[in-house]
């Protein structure tokens, strides 16, 4: 009956449980913690789900690959479209949170758009690389799954980057942390420093180059692997 709104409801319940409890545990005021963790979980869900699903994106499309001549990117776009739709369903939860926490938005919020676009470009590249590798070696899917779970703790999803002691700041250079900051900060009414943009662009170049090499080297073999 509620159909797609279950996606929203389940994320909403997790936030309602996690938000107030962890704010109290970390001893951070709720109105600065809650929007942070809401956006963190929503975007992390998007990124993690896309990366995990991209491992099986070509293996799952085996019948298409074996009977027709569709470009590989078609399956990646389907994956991205599906995940962006889920993201959109969950983003509606941020609106009441932002209003109640007194987030002030201004023209700098529009920086979310190029930030998100950069994130999508990266996810596309990662999906192509992982999809091709996992089409050949099926157990890499599990390795990626474990890595993504591990990275969730190294990324300021639930905890706030400000709480990090100075010597541990290195953790914030992890690419997922930088991309998360890129999309989260504008929506919190803040602006990302240039080092975040620089890091994100550098990672984008690296990911796209890796994807292009793997693609041109092994694309023709994918149909034999699935």
């Amino acid at each position: 009956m509620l159909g797609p709104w279950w996606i929203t409801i389940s994320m909403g319940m997790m936030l309602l449980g996690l938000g107030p409890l962890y704010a109290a545990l970390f001893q951070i005021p709720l109105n600065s913690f809650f929007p942070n963790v809401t956006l963190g979980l929503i975007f992390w869900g998007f990124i993690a789900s896309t990366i995990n699903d991209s491992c099986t994106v070509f293996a799952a499309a085996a019948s298409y690959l074996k009977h027709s001549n569709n470009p590989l990117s078609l399956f990646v776009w389907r994956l991205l479209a599906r995940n962006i739709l889920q993201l959109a369903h969950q983003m509606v939860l941020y609106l009441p949170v932002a209003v109640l926490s007194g987030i002030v938005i201004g023209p700098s919020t529009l920086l979310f758009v190029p930030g998100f676009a950069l994130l999508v470009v990266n996810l596309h590249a990662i999906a192509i690389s992982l999809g091709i590798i996992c089409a050949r070696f099926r157990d890499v899917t599990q390795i990626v799954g474990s890595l993504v779970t591990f990275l969730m703790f190294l990324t300021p999803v639930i905890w706030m980057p400000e709480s990090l002691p100075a010597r541990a700041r290195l953790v914030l250079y992890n690419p997922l942390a930088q991309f998360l900051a890129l999309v989260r900060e504008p929506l919190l009414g803040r602006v990302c420093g240039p080092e975040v943009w620089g890091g994100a662009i550098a990672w984008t170049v690296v990911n796209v180059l890796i994807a292009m090499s793997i693609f041109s080297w092994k694309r023709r073999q994918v149909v034999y692997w699935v």
Partner: protein
Amino acid sequence: MAILRLENVTIDLPIFGFDAGSLKKTLATTVTGGRIKLETGITVVRALDDVSLNLRDGDRLGLYGHNGAGKSTLLRTLAGVYPPTKGTYRREGTLASFIDPMLGIEMDATGYENIHLRGLVMGLNRATVNRILPEIAEFSGLGNFLSMPLRTYSSGMLMRLAFSIVTSVRADILLLDEWLSVGDAEFQERADKRMREIVDNTGILVLATHSPEMIRRECNRVMELCHGRNMGEKELPQDTTAAPPLADVI
């Protein structure tokens, strides 16, 4: 003007051992020097060996051969699915492949939704699909069942829907793996008429079949494949009354 050309094409298919898909096991055999017995080897099968063909508008090629001769592999190569290991492949003109009519079918979606889905997979845009939808629905004869999910259909109904969708688009080049003949007697008659219409209006036809009568009826050229090799291609005279028995030709 449709063109379909293969020049000295060889297709090598890698067959992976059961454990070859595992990175951990492949690395383990490298490290232990193969002492642990794991099937990480890759066998390569030469599915097509130095096959050439040159087809133009008006050509109807019949592919004939024993099971496992390479007919389906050749069809997939012509469809662009397998890139040639050696040799070149050239195609000009749109291509419709009737090899797998069930491609892209979603069992949980309704008949109408599947028509949209298949239409998009075949490269049509939404407006075109909406335009041809009533005609497809009417041809399939499935009536109200089209609003129900495909998992409620019988296999005959599934094939009828798949057939109606797949034969609703015209293309310059047509690839057939056996003549499509589905459904009950009444549907078969309409289906045969539609196949006739499509084949008569297409530029190039490639038909893989075990039936010499089919080849005689439909094709003007026949190629015999044996273990991936082209054993000979012959022109068939279209005047069947003066034609020698097919056994002499093939």
